[in-house]
């Protein structure tokens, strides 16, 4: 594959897109594990959601 004389622009465009998409994926995964950890911590301390409480 020959990218010609403007290879720098093409590589830079793909690098930026890859970086932004990777950052989005990392943000979603990190946020998920953070919220799960906090929820488990709260449940371990006996805090339950109103919908799970009995009568």
């Amino acid at each position: 594959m020959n990218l010609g004389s403007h290879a720098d622009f093409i590589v830079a465009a793909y690098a930026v897109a890859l970086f932004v998409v990777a950052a989005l994926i990392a943000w979603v995964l990190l946020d998920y594990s953070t919220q799960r950890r906090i929820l488990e911590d709260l449940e371990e301390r006996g805090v339950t959601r109103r919908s799970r409480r009995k009568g």
Partner: protein
Amino acid sequence: MAVIDFANPTRFLRIVDRLMPWLIAATVMLFAIGLYRAMNAPDDYQQGATVKIMFLHVPAAWLGMFGWALMSVAALGTLVWRHPLADVSGKAAAPIGAAFTFICLVTGSLWGRPTWGTYWVWDARLTSMLVLLLLYLGVLALYWTAEEPGRGARAAAILSLVGAVNLPIIKFSVDWWNTLHQPASVFRVGGSTIDPSLLTPLLIMALAFTLLFVTLHLAAMRNEILRRRVRNMRLMQAQEAHA
């Protein structure tokens, strides 16, 4: 299952957990095919190899606009129907739509330099796309800075609806004004002007990016539901401590 069943956050989380592996697999597969086809696509007779930037730039532009359209529908759900997942959906879509709009602007700029001889020009298409990014940042600021989440959600919903005016401006800017940006070449009356050897990889990449958007959006919605549960549980904990 009726659409209304998705309104239950617990059921929604169960559906997302079940869908997620399939969505991830389909996204990875489509990107593998799309990138292979994009890298092996012929050069454009005028632009040469820089046409490869199109496979990123065009889907990112579509999804930047799609994200805002999604937020506008979610805004209606928040303001009119008070659907429990509408605000969750709008809030989850904002950073993803902003990211795709950013990719569109940066890749467009990197495509513009070798093609037009400049990174930026204040023509209607580029300016309206920049306005879209600024609107996204405005919505994110409203969500992140509101002390009371409900008030932030309503303000963001109103801005989402007002900002929807920008979508037809972006789409038709190349027809209404004399722009350096080329007119529509994929979805236009009379059919696409792009050769199939470039159009096919473009559509595969667009589908891959769309699946990526959907996957990230569902994952971000799941996170937002969990965040709201954490907030409610902390509030209850604080109330019990004071009782």
